[in-house]
């Protein structure tokens, strides 16, 4: 039996200089990710709080975290997750 992450809702912080288009494209390039949606929820002097929805057939959370860190975004919390099981 295998389990797959189908959806993640991540609350993250990123520098204002990093465009959400670049961040979303970088996350979407990860294997197993099919769709990424980013919404800016708060804007500060240096940073922006964003809600990132990642959807796919088999999302590798470690890889998503790595790509986000590489693109200067910090994960604050994972607010929602959808996992499915293949018997």
């Amino acid at each position, binding site marked *: 039996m295998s389990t797959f992450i189908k959806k993640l809702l991540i609350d993250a912080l990123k520098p204002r200089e990093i465009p959400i288009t670049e961040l979303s494209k970088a996350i979407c390039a990860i294997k197993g990710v099919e769709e990424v949606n980013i919404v800016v929820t708060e804007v500060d002097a240096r940073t922006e709080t964003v809600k990132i929805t990642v959807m796919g057939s088999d999302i590798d959370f470690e890889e998503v975290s790595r790509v986000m860190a590489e693109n200067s975004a*910090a994960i604050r919390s994972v607010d929602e997750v959808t996992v499915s099981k293949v018997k």
Partner: protein
Amino acid sequence: MEEAESSHKGFLSKVVSRFKCLIVGAPARCRPEDVSFKKLMLISGVTEIFRRYFVMNMFDGALAALGVVLGMWISGVIDPKTVVRTVLGAGFAMFFSGSLGAYLTEKAERERKLRELEESMFQDMRGSLFERSSRFAVLLVSLVDGISPLLACALIATPFLVSGVLNLSFTFAASIAIGVGIATLGALGVFLGKVSRGSLIGYPLFMILAGLASAIVIVLLGAQI
């Protein structure tokens, strides 16, 4: 044949990409899109600084070179090689002072910004896109800061450099060099006019007047001493 050429190009682009990864300190798994110049320029916001430094330092270089040429002319120097050595010497001095000065000041500013961001985000930003773009900005700004005055000096020294080959008289070469200097100032003015999306006459006129004013001061000073 075409295949060989495309594989050659592929190899070359890989080498260029690897070099770009190295100079900006990208992580080991560096992909070409991680070091795309367009992306790094967008994130670092270096375009504006780049334009500012380019005009400022090229203006410096052009005025200094014009001053050297005029000063030597009114001092009675008639050897073109002496002028070339002096102008290029001044150009290289400005290259080193400009690039090293800009490297250190820009690095300090960018490091401060990175530390402030790390404090805001409670995260180590080493190896991140933000750090890479900062490093890229520092290198680009220092390069532009150094090359722009050297370029102005090289342009102004060119008539003297070719005067031997083309058999030009010293006075004629000096006149062309001054013309090149004034034209460089005018071109910088046009560039500034385009940047400001304002007057294409006001900026060049101001730049040329600055050149003429410095020339008048040098000539008057030469007459007094």
